[in-house]
C-alpha cells in the first residue's frame, strides 16, 4: 500500500513547516531510521519550504508509525502536530503524489520549481537505497503526467509574478523583444529581474542613474548595456520601446511632457511604461498620450491575478490528464497484486489444459464417457499438483515486503 503522511502550506503555518523540515544533510540518516522504525519497504522524503511529506510503500497500513516517526525525529509530540497532518493511503496517496508533481497542489498554482524539488527528493531516496520498483514507477509516471499537464494545458503558461508579467506584457505589445530597447530609470531589484529577462530575449538595455551614477553603471555592465545620468531622460526615452521606472524618489520623475516629447520624436510608435515605484515615478496622465501603455504596480498585480485565474481554469483540464495517468498507474499496481496473479496463473494453466485435451481428442477419435472423465481428472491433477506449491508460497508472500518484485518475476516467467 502506498502512503503519504505530511503537511503543507494548506494545513500548516510556516513555523510548523520549518520545525519539521528535513535538511538535505540529514536525509540519508532520516530515510534509514524511517524505514527501520515504521516498517516502510520503500520511502522518500519531500521537504521544501511549502511542504514536508513522507512517501512510502509497505505491505500493510503504516500511516500511524510514519506519523509517529515524523514527530519523534523532530522531538515533537504527535498530538501537537495532529491538526496539521494529513495521512493518505492507497489511491488518495497516489493522487496526491501526482498532483504535487504537477504543481496542482502548489501555493502558486502551476509554478515550475516543484517538479525539480520532487526530482531531487527521489534522487536522494535512490542514493539512500530506499527506492524500490513501486516508488520508482510512481516517480516516472507522475513526472510524465506532470509534463503532459504542462504541455497540454496552459497551467504554467501565463506569468504570475510582477516582473514576469511586465515582460509578458512587453511581448504582447512588441511581439519579439529582439532588437527592442529597454530603459531602466533607477536600479531597483524588481526592475533588474524584468530587464534581465528582456535582455535574455534579445533586448538592449540602458540604465539611468539617480544621485550616484555608480550603481547604474554596475547594473548596466551586468545587463550588457550603457549608463547615463537622469538628466538624459528625454533623449534616452526617445530611443527605447520599454521604460521601467523604479526610483526611490518621493515625487514624480517622468512627467507627461517628457513622454509627449519622446513620442513626438518616436513618431508615436508604441511605448510601454512600467512604473514599479511606490510612491509612483511616472505621472498617471502620461498613460493618455497616444500609443503609450502605462502600467503601475497595481496594474501589474491585477494582470498577475487575471493570469492566476486563467491557470485555475486550466487546472480542471490538468486534473483530467492526471486522472488518466493515475488510472494507468493503479492498473499497473493491481497487476502486481498476488490475488489477481493467482487467478490469472490458474486460468492460463486451465486454458493450456483444455487446448491440449482438444488436440488429443482429434487424434484419438470419440472417447467413452469413462475415458472422458479419466482424461479430465488426469490433466486437472497435473495442473493442480504443479500449481500448488507456488500458490501456497505466493499467498504467504503477500505480506512480504518484496512481493511486488516476485509477482513481477512470475509474470515474466509465465508470460502473463
Amino acid at each position, binding site marked *: 500500500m502506498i502512503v503519504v503522511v505530511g503537511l503543507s502550506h494548506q494545513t500548516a503555518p510556516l513555523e510548523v513547516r520549518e520545525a519539521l523540515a528535513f535538511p538535505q544533510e540529514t536525509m540519508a540518516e532520516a530515510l534509514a531510521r524511517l524505514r527501520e522504525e515504521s516498517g516502510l519497504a520503500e520511502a522518500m522524503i519531500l521537504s521544501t519550504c511549502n511542504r514536508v511529506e513522507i512517501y512510502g510503500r509497505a505491505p500493510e497500513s503504516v500511516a500511524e508509525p510514519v506519523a509517529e516517526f515524523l514527530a519523534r525525529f523532530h522531538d515533537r509530540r504527535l498530538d501537537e502536530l495532529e491538526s496539521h497532518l494529513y495521512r493518505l493511503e492507497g489511491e488518495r496517496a497516489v493522487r496526491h503524489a501526482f498532483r504535487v508533481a504537477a504543481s496542482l497542489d502548489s501555493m502558486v498554482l502551476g509554478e515550475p520549481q516543484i517538479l525539480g524539488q520532487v526530482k531531487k527528493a527521489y534522487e536522494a531516496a535512490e542514493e539512500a537505497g530506499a527506492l524500490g520498483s513501486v516508488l520508482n514507477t510512481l516517480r516516472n509516471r507522475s513526472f510524465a503526467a506532470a509534463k503532459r499537464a504542462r504541455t497540454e494545458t496552459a497551467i504554467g503558461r501565463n506569468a504570475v509574478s510582477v516582473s514576469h508579467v511586465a515582460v509578458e506584457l512587453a511581448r*504582447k505589445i*512588441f511581439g519579439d523583444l529582439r532588437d527592442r530597447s529597454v530603459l531602466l530609470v533607477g536600479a531597483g531589484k524588481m526592475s533588474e529581474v524584468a530587464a534581465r529577462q528582456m535582455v535574455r530575449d534579445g533586448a538592449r538595455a540602458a540604465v539611468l542613474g539617480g544621485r550616484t551614477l555608480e550603481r547604474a553603471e554596475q547594473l548596466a555592465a551586468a545587463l550588457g548595456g550603457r549608463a547615463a545620468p537622469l538628466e538624459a531622460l528625454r533623449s534616452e526615452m526617445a530611443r527605447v520601446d520599454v521604460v521601467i521606472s523604479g526610483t526611490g524618489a518621493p515625487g514624480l520623475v517622468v512627467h507627461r511632457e517628457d513622454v509627449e516629447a519622446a513620442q513626438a520624436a518616436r513618431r508615436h*510608435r*508604441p511605448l510601454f511604461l512600467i512604473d514599479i515605484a511606490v510612491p509612483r515615478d511616472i505621472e498617471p496622465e502620461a498613460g493618455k498620450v497616444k500609443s503609450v501603455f502605462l502600467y503601475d504596480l497595481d496594474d501589474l498585480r491585477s*494582470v498577475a491575478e*487575471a493570469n492566476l485565474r*486563467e491557470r485555475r481554469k486550466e487546472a480542471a483540464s490538468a486534473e483530467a490528464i492526471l486522472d488518466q495517468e493515475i488510472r494507468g498507474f493503479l492498473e499497473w499496481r493491481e497487476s502486481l497484486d498476488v490475488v489477481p496473479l493467482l487467478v490469472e496463473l490458474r486460468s492460463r494453466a486451465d486454458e493450456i489444459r483444455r487446448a491440449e485435451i482438444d488436440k488429443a481428442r482429434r487424434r484419438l477419435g470419440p472417447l467413452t464417457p469413462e475415458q472422458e472423465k479419466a482424461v479430465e481428472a488426469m490433466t486437472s491433477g497435473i495442473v493442480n499438483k504443479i500449481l500448488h506449491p507456488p500458490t501456497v508460497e505466493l499467498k504467504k508472500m503477500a505480506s512480504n515486503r518484496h512481493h511486488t518484485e516476485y509477482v513481477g518475476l512470475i509474470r515474466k516467467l509465465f508470460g502473463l
Partner: protein
Amino acid sequence: MDSRVYLFLALIFYAVGAVHVLVHVLTRRRLLTTLTVTSTLLGFAFHTAALSQRWTEAGHFPAVGLRDGASFLAWATVLVFLLVYVTTKVDALGLFAYPFAFVLVFVANLSPPSDRPDSVLQGLYLPVHTVLAVFGYGALFVAFTMGVLYLVQERELRSRSPQRFYYVIPSLERCDTIGGRSVILGFGFLTLAILTGFHWNMSLNGRYWTGDPKEWAALAAWAIYVVLIAARFRAGWGGRRAAWLGIAGFLIVVFTFAWATLVPGVVVAAP
C-alpha cells in the same frame, strides 16, 4: 455528383470548423486543433469539387450570381486563411475566417444558380478578373481581421485586467505586421482586378468607365488603400490608425462585392 451535393458537404465541414473555434474560444483551449484543420481541409476539398463541377454545369467560369459568387469568394477566403495560418500560425484568424466562410457557403447553398447563357461570360475576362478580385478580397479580409484583432488586443492591454481575448490574440506588433502585409498583397490584386475590369468594359462597351456605382465604390476602396499604404510608409502610420483604415477599406470592398452580385444585370467589371 451534383455540384449542390459537394457544396452542401463543404458547408457541413466548415460548420464543424466554425463551431469548434467558437467552443474553443469559450473554453479557452487552443483555438485550432487537428480536428479543426482536418475538417477545414475536407471542406475545402469538397468545395473545390463543387466549383469544378459547377463550372461544367454552367458552361462558364462559376463566379456569376449570388450562389456562385458567394461560393467562389468563400473558397478563396478559406484558401487565403489556410496559407496565412500555415505561414504565421496565428490561429485567432480562425475566429473570423470560419464564420465568414460558413455564412458565405450557407448563403450560396440557399440561393438558386443563375444560369443565363450570355456571350459576355465566355472568354478569359471572367475567370481572370474574378480570380484576381477574390484573392484580393481574401487578403483584404485578413487585413480586416488583423485590424479588429489589433483593436481588441489594444483594448485588453489598456483594461489592465485582461479577459479571454488577451490570451488568444497575438501581440500588437504581429497583428500590425501581418495586417500591413495583407493590405499590400490585397491592394496589388485589387489594382489588377480593377484594371482588368476596365479592360473588360472596354471590350464590351467601348468605354473604360461607364459611371456605374460599383465602379465608384471600387475606386473609393482603392483610394482608401492608397492612403493607408502611403501613410504607413511615408508617415509611419501603424497600429491603431492602420487597423481602422484596414477595417474601413474592407467594408467598402464588401459593399462593392454585394453590389456586383446582388443587383441583377451587373456582372461586368465587378472589381
